[in-house]
């Protein structure tokens, strides 16, 4: 293999720290890095459409909004159709069931992870919507999850409902027959 170019004049690398000259710390390994936990807290101010969506979630309803030109239903609504640039004003109440379009099985743990691994992260097309959402799938071995599988939302108990998508804990198989994956090919 060819070599890395020499370091240009005027630059140098950090030399290793030599602790041997100071008896009190001789033999101590030099500190190369420290881990500093970081935390960011912020107040989230939803716009009008996310406000409608979040307030409906607190009532255990999933609300989408329709594009005035294409007629397609967006969830969660952001108040505008990204395709035509017009407001999505018509409210559409969606079902509590949906279809898995595609998925992966996550088997790696990260800082801040809330779910035990392995878990299935799927794209779920909620009944009545035209766009998929990321969702956690439970109640079925990961190896049995498949595109076209029908699922239903598992909600938190009614006294824990809040203005958050956390109201839906995960999705589980609904027991209905699978949808032919070819009929949902345009939804990823």
């Amino acid at each position, binding site marked *: 293999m060819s070599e890395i*170019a020499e370091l240009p004049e005027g630059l140098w690398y950090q030399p290793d720290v030599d602790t041997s000259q100071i008896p009190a710390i001789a033999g101590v390994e030099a500190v190369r890095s420290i881990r500093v936990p970081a935390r960011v807290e912020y107040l*989230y101010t939803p716009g009008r459409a996310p406000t409608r969506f979040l307030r409906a979630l607190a009532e255990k309803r999933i609300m989408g909004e329709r594009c005035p030109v294409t007629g397609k239903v967006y969830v969660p609504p952001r108040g505008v159709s990204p395709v035509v640039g017009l407001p999505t004003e018509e409210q559409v109440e969606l079902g509590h069931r949906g279809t898995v379009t595609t998925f*992966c*099985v996550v088997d790696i743990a990260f800082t801040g992870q809330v779910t035990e691994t392995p878990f299935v992260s799927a794209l779920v097309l909620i009944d009545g919507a035209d766009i998929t959402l990321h969702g956690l799938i439970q109640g079925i071995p990961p190896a049995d999850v498949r595109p076209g599988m029908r699922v239903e939302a598992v909600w938190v108990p009614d006294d824990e409902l809040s203005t958050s*998508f*956390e109201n839906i804990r995960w999705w589980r198989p609904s027991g209905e027959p699978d949808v032919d994956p070819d009929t949902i090919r345009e939804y990823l």
Partner: protein
Amino acid sequence: MARNERVAVVGVGQTKYAATRGDVSLPGLLREAVFRALDDAGMAMGDIDAVVLGKAPDFFEGLMMPEPYLADALGAVGKPLLRVHTAGSVGGSTAIVAAGLVEARVHRRVLTVGWQMQSCSEAMWALSLPMPFQQQLVAGAGGYFAPFIRAYMQRSEAPDDIGILVALKDRRNALKNPYAHLHEPDISYDSIKESLMLWDPIRYAETCPSSDGAIAMVLTDEAGGDAAARPPAWVHGMAFRSEPVMAVGRDEVSPLAGRQCAADVYAQAGITDPREQLDVVEMYVPFSWYEPMWLENLGFAEVGDGWKLTEKGVTALDGDLPVNPSGGVLSSNPIGASGMIRFGEAALQVRGQAGEHQVDGARLALGHAYGGGAQFFAMWVVGADKP
């Protein structure tokens, strides 16, 4: 109307990429790339008119708006300094913004730098800020892209091991690139196949590493290219495109923005048959299966056929369309630099300066970057001859 100024790449400088570069500070890391690029161009910092920087979002390093404090280290004090933000594609977009300043005759000599020091923070955490209107699934970038890879595998009916072949090729190419982060001489088809399934269908060994590193390029006008110390690479076309991440009917396996970006850049470069006319491609492949996916998105293969080029060895270093001779993102991934490394490696190839991973006789090369939820694209075509 006067034509645009021709743009030449006259200097490229890279750092050694590594999981942790404990031997340099962030300014020192950037200076390593910058001084090498200036050396390559036969210039000094005083010759530079403006500096254009790019890196991935600040949460990745936990260092907010570092560009003002880097101005001194980059010789940018008193000069225009601009930062570009387009997530993972930022290295490519940054190079295009820098080239645009030359093309529009705003500046004659522009220094452009892309970097990331991933050892400073938890990039995966930075990617997972909780929002109240979506489910909290901390799954990392692989968890985001793996479902689309699965969809591609199903649509194309590709054999299960195409991703293994891509990873094997790129990691072997990296052995010829002294700057690459991962040098794994013992890697084999079986070792990749047996590596942990992190985001089924993505295995550990089919995933990019987290790297520290920087790349810099010196771009000049036509006169600068004519007078360059070494053969320059000439920019034949460049474009970026983006699309909304959540739009009904969006195809995340082959995004429209990518197809349109490629069509634009090929039209500028006079390319009608990319497979035939381009000699080498440096493509943004952070997960192995993106090679066949982008081969289709970029027009090198018909829809559903990208994997056949990989399987037949067409994209190998000795194939007729080498893809990622440098080892690619799969072998080195300082995120904010990764796109510019693709652009810089494309330039090195047509300049004949790529060292052991040089593709013989490369005259025209594509550099490609993507980012975000596969919604940002940046590409350029560079050639040994003037456009």
